[in-house]
């Protein structure tokens, strides 16, 4: 079965990719399977300089989900380009590089650097990290700021820019429309919902950071609702995510209006998750009467999305 999808500036052999922050820079998962199997790889967020991130504990389990407050730990954009990207460049799998920062200047700096790096096929502008005070979420909850930042990054990027939206807003469609009008090439959604778990023995939050980002199957219904709402108003390609753990979930996101799908938390439960989903996809689509991934996208009656003909 033909699983290929063409997004704005991205040719994917299948619509499945690990989500940013849940797959590091690929090395560890390559010990489980061949990264050539993936449609793409979304790498961990990069900032201008190295960040140590939050104190531990950084993760907690919730019902059908988890909280994380890693805090954008990363060795900084230059170290990533020098030490991490070369490993990934050996694969025939496009890299989508997650860009974070505290200020517009930092975002622009990181975007500029990453968009020049070999193998980076697109940027993912992370304006939705809930786990650091100045982690960009202010850009993700205000349409004007989202628009301004997207424009600034578009101005320097040599590759398509996808903007990653936060679900912690009253009106996600307004943010999506803002980044569309600012020239974004696509949208990725959703980032995590802000949550908290208390340690019953101390009465204090279990995560050192206090709050954390909620991910996993628990949030899938929220993600599906938001993808569907954005799809009704925006014609950009959407990479959907939030709670995907089975091939059926991928189909649900595609039907909701996504063009490709990312898998986050489920990589922790089962390190083979992306591979298993890719392997199961043909049978799953066939069972529901679809001839290809493109067939779903076409038949789900979405507004004219710009599918490049390359």
């Amino acid at each position, binding site marked *: 079965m033909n699983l290929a999808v063409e997004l704005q500036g991205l040719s994917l052999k299948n619509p499945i990719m690990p989500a940013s*922050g*849940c*797959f*590091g820079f690929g*090395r*560890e*998962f390559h*010990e*489980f*399977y061949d990264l050539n199997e993936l449609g793409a790889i979304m790498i*961990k967020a990069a900032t201008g300089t*190295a960040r*140590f*991130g939050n104190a*531990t*504990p*950084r*993760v*907690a*389990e919730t*019902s*059908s*989900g*988890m909280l*994380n407050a*890693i805090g954008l*730990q990363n060795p900084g954009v230059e170290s990533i380009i020098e030490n991490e990207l070369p490993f990934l460049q050996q694969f025939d799998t496009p890299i989508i590089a997650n860009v974070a920062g505290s200020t517009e200047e930092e975002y622009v700096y990181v975007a500029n650097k990453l968009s020049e790096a070999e193998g980076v096929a697109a940027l993912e502008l992370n304006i939705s990290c809930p786990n650091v005070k100045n982690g960009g979420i202010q850009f993700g909850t205000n349409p004007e700021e989202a628009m301004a930042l997207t424009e600034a990054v578009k101005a320097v990027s040599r590759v398509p820019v996808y903007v990653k939206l936060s679900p912690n807003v009253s009106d996600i469609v307004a943010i999506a429309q803002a980044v569309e009008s600012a020239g974004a090439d696509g949208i990725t959604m959703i980032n995590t919902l802000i949550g908290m778990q208390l340690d019953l023995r101390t009465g204090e939050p279990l995560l050192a950071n206090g709050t954390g980002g909620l991910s*996993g*199957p628990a949030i899938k219904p929220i993600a599906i609702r938001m993808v569907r709402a954005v799809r009704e108003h925006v014609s950009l390609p959407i990479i959907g995510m939030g709670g995907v*753990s089975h091939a059926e979930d991928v189909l649900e996101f595609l039907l909701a209006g996504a063009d490709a799908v990312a898998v986050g*938390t*489920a*990589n*922790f*439960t*089962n*390190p*083979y998750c992306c591979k298993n989903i890719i392997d199961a996809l043909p049978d799953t689509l066939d069972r529901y009467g679809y001839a290809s991934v493109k067939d779903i996208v076409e038949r789900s009656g979405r507004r004219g999305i710009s599918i490049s003909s390359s």
Partner: protein
Amino acid sequence: MQKVEQMTILENRLIAKDTYELKVTGALMNEMRTPGQFLHIAIGDGWEHVLRRPLSIANVDHHIVTIVYKVLGKGTAKLATKRQGDQLDVLGPRGNGFPVENIHDCNILLIGGGVGIPPLHYLGKQLLTQGNQIFSLLGFQTKEQVFYEREFGRLGEVMVTTDDGSYGKKGRVTDHVAQFKGIDLTFSCGPKPMLKAVSDLPLPGYVSLEERMGCGIGACFACVCEANDERGYVKVCADGPVFRKGEVVL
């Protein structure tokens, strides 16, 4: 290539208050030889438990691996309901274990607290076969929680402490460590305050850390710990859980 495999449960029995000894076997057994490594275990089917649980190898014998775990939260409570013949989804063994190869003819002190004790058992067994003399200092909260006193007894001299004095010596392990003389090397595993106290002793050795984990394989940065060297930080799941004393900030 790393593997995740279904292992078969042979036994899962209560050996002390809230404490179970679990024996499993399967193809993954061929990989299990380094003490201090852990298995990253998926609990429950469905996705109620999205995170795996790290549990240490407490023994390997005749193609059977033993884990000793304490029921603390929902995951271990669920694990305690598993029965003989059930399958267990195991990722591992993971992590850098205790360095044992080059240690011979030493006086070794194993210092364990609570659920930090199990990995020291497998470690002690290996060190013993290499001609070392093993002393064990094992701390528990209270009498009903004491386990593996006999198993450590087979390795050498054992001292048990309980916080409330209900069994063995009263107090914490670090209150009694001075009684062991002529020690060349310590290996310790337990709660952070204990590890910190042990680290302050003027003896070389290794500590094994616990930290909440996401992936368990080094990809998510959940389990980092500040390092005292130029790396800045290390990952407990991939660079540890075992570190040289002084290597990390406790």
